[in-house]
């Protein structure tokens, strides 16, 4: 919750309660309105300034291209969504786990963290062949790439969040005889949660990147396939169509993660 909300909080809450549904509806309407305005600006700008379609095609052209082969986009969307979700979930879980492990076992951290950093410096696309070799052209292969891209920021932020815990609060818990597990579950992880979510929001985007790039290694369906196809046939309209679909997926997923964050991290920041 940010500072300017302070005074409006009580009033805002009261109005929100008295007309809860219209409020969420209003939000939706505002969103749709925003999208509509953006669409009009896009369409208008292209027409008005006579932008070459090669640089920026009209939105209507793009939407029509999508409507011409809707199955390709729907199937691609769903397939990429599945890969993204699996990669995100596993990467997030592993990232938090490694953050905790590194936090608890310093020796392990000093030994392995640098290797994690190194692992992140390897561009996966250089190893398309290896990925196919090890994992085949399966959904799993994409999920693994998504996983590979997501876990590291989560580990870094988990570690950071865990280390930012007020030592006085740790001392209090220890004075209650808390085991290190209890310390972790009841104090350190909740304290780190806001930080972890920053990374998870980032990971939401990164896992999609992983899924899409993963689809470049000889796959048959997915937004990445559509993007690649469009890219190499120099079909600018199709490039934009694939970009729009990916942006829709990415923004939706990001919004979902952010919504979960708002539910879980409800308390005000406090030292």
């Amino acid at each position, binding site marked *: 919750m940010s500072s300017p909300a302070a005074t409006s909080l009580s009033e805002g809450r009261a109005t929100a309660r008295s007309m809860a549904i219209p409020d969420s509806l209003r939000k939706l309407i505002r969103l749709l309105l925003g999208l509509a305005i953006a669409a009009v600006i896009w369409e208008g700008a292209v027409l008005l300034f006579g932008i070459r379609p090669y640089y920026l095609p009209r939105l209507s052209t793009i939407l029509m291209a999508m409507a011409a082969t809707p199955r390709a986009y729907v199937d691609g969307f769903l397939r990429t969504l599945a890969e993204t979700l699996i990669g995100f979930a596993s990467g997030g879980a592993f990232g938090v786990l490694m953050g905790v492990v590194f936090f608890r076992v310093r020796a392990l951290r000093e030994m392995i963290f640098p290797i994690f950093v190194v692992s992140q410096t390897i561009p996966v696309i250089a190893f398309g062949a290896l990925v196919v070799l090890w994992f085949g052209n399966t959904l799993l292969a994409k999920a693994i790439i998504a996983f590979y891209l997501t876990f590291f920021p989560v580990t870094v932020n988990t570690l950071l969040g865990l280390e930012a815990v007020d030592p006085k609060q740790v001392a209090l818990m220890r004075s209650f005889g808390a085991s290190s597990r209890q310390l972790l579950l009841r104090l350190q992880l909740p304290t780190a*949660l806001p930080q972890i979510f920053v990374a998870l929001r980032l990971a939401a985007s990164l896992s999609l990147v992983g899924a899409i790039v993963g689809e470049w290694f000889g796959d048959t369906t997915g937004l990445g396939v559509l993007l690649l196809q469009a890219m190499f046939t120099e079909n600018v309209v199709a490039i934009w169509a694939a970009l729009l679909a990916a942006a829709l997926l990415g923004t939706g997923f990001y919004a979902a993660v952010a919504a979960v964050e708002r539910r879980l991290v409800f308390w005000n920041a406090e030292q």
Partner: protein
Amino acid sequence: MEAPQAHPKPEPLLELRAINKTFGAVAALSGLQASVAPGEFVTVVGPSGCGKSTLFNIVAGLEEPDAGGILRFEGNSCHASDLLGRVSFMPQRDLLFPWRNVVDNAILALEVEGMPREQARAKALKMLPEFGLAGFEKQYPNQLSGGMRQRVALMRTFLFERDLMLLDEPFGALDALTRAMMQRWLLDVWQKYRRTILFITHDVDEAIFLGDRVLVMTARPGSVKLEQIVDLPRPRRPEIVTSPEFVRLKRTLLDAIEEESMKSFQSSIAQEKMP
């Protein structure tokens, strides 16, 4: 009711000898010596910054004193860290968890002990009215007043039932009556369960009213300057504060504290003149 023995018994619950603690260049405690008998109520007063909270941190097991000091608990020599989980400790700052509401903050220690959450909540809910917090069980710390936060922290400590309680200025943010009610409540608990209590306060009246013994600490580096036994009969009525013995005790203690406070101001002025 008989006044508890104020003189240290043959086997004290807690014994500290030659305790030093330095933080970098700052010596917080130096040669501190004290012992607390089982069931005793000891209050601690002293100038601000003299090392009271540091002493508590050591007894709560949170900080090790410098090497060379002796720490004994229930007759056994031990490390400070051995005391973790054996002492119920209320820190000077409330340290409530912002993601837990009043009840869940209060039951923190119970949860750590392994009590099922629902059972712990039920137990805490019953105590809320006594702490003037009824109806606030669902509030989060940022929705509470300063005194209410302190009462939640206090409740959390009481629910963690241990033989030795360390309370660091627990009533600092309370108004006179709430404070009086809390004092009465504390004395009840102490007598009923024969707990041993170490209690930091800046209120000399409170120190005398509650304690079997008042420890006055010296200016930093802290040690015990004076151990004043309070042999007023119990139960003590509020009117006792106007009794001549009480006033005499208060005078003695105030003089001791003021002498030390003065020192700490002088020393800091001296320090300031030649850095």
